[in-house]
């Protein structure tokens, strides 16, 4: 029980990554695969932020005087994730538009029925 409350963020990130991978591997519908990619992304963001976390830490912003620099969380993963989120949205839009084009071309989103997509 102690483990659960101590490592909530890691468990959440781990579960999101595994759920996302499961959806990518098993689901037949292309839209669901894209949703799986998005969940996988979210798990990675949560994991990176959790690695930089400091217990009872504050945001790394000196917005008012008297903030303790030793109590601030790591700014590097936050900087990585903040750009990654915006790029994730753009890549997701690209994936969705490709799915729309595949539907317009083959008339189906079922990956088992598209010959070139089967594995």
């Amino acid at each position: 029980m102690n483990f659960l409350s101590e490592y909530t963020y890691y468990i959440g990130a781990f579960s999101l990554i595994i759920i996302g991978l499961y959806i990518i591997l098993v689901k037949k519908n292309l839209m669901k695969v894209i949703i799986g990619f998005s969940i996988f992304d979210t798990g990675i963001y949560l994991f990176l932020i959790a690695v930089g976390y400091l217990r009872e830490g504050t945001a790394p912003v000196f917005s008012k005087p008297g903030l303790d620099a030793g109590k601030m969380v790591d700014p590097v993963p936050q900087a990585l994730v903040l750009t990654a989120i915006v790029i994730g949205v753009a890549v997701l839009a690209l994936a969705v538009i490709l799915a729309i084009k595949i539907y317009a071309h083959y008339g189906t989103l079922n990956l088992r029925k598209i010959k070139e997509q089967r594995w």
Partner: protein
Amino acid sequence: MRKLISIILLGMVATGLFMSISQIPFGEPGERIGDHFINQGVNETGATNIVAAVVVSYRGFDTLGEVSVLFTAAMGLGAVIGLVRRKKTHTPIEPASLIVYTGCRFLFPVILLVGTYIVIHGHLTPGGGFQGGAVIASAFLLMYLGCRGKRIRENLSRGLESLGGLLFILLGVTGLVIGRDFLFSFLPEGEAGNLISAGIIPLIYMAVGLKVGSELTGIIDHLIEDTDELPE
């Protein structure tokens, strides 16, 4: 059979992930690369928001690369849409109700104002070009949803996007021209905490905000244009 293989594979990945994640201590203070940025960041860059200092100053070149990834994704999207131009079917767009229409028109400038504030104060408070750009794009998304039929001018958004990217590179090259490094902060740092301070960080964040905002708006415009044209 296929499902079984997938689950066995997933189990192996999960075991590996669990074994590596469980070794990382959570929330414990220790040796961090961020400590230098936290302790010296305000002196070295003049920005009170250390995340902004890391994104624009310490990792400025990486950010330029990430912005170009964004640009490539948006360009690829435009290219894929332009690949197969279906003939336009003028399906009448059902207008939103008066309440939704008026509410969207009322909220639009307010959201734009908040987005611009987040971009301009990126070096002082939480926020910056990426976040503010996303907020600005959300204002345009609201307009697209609430006031169907209104369109942005495509050339204008493309021009603003190019302007943002050009500004970023020009600011970087200026450092080379005056004989220092790429993205060298050639402006005075000023007093930390003032709006006009931190050298070129606010300028670069404005360029990034312009670029991200117009880029995401362009993506929304492309997607809505495509769905409007889908045959019944």
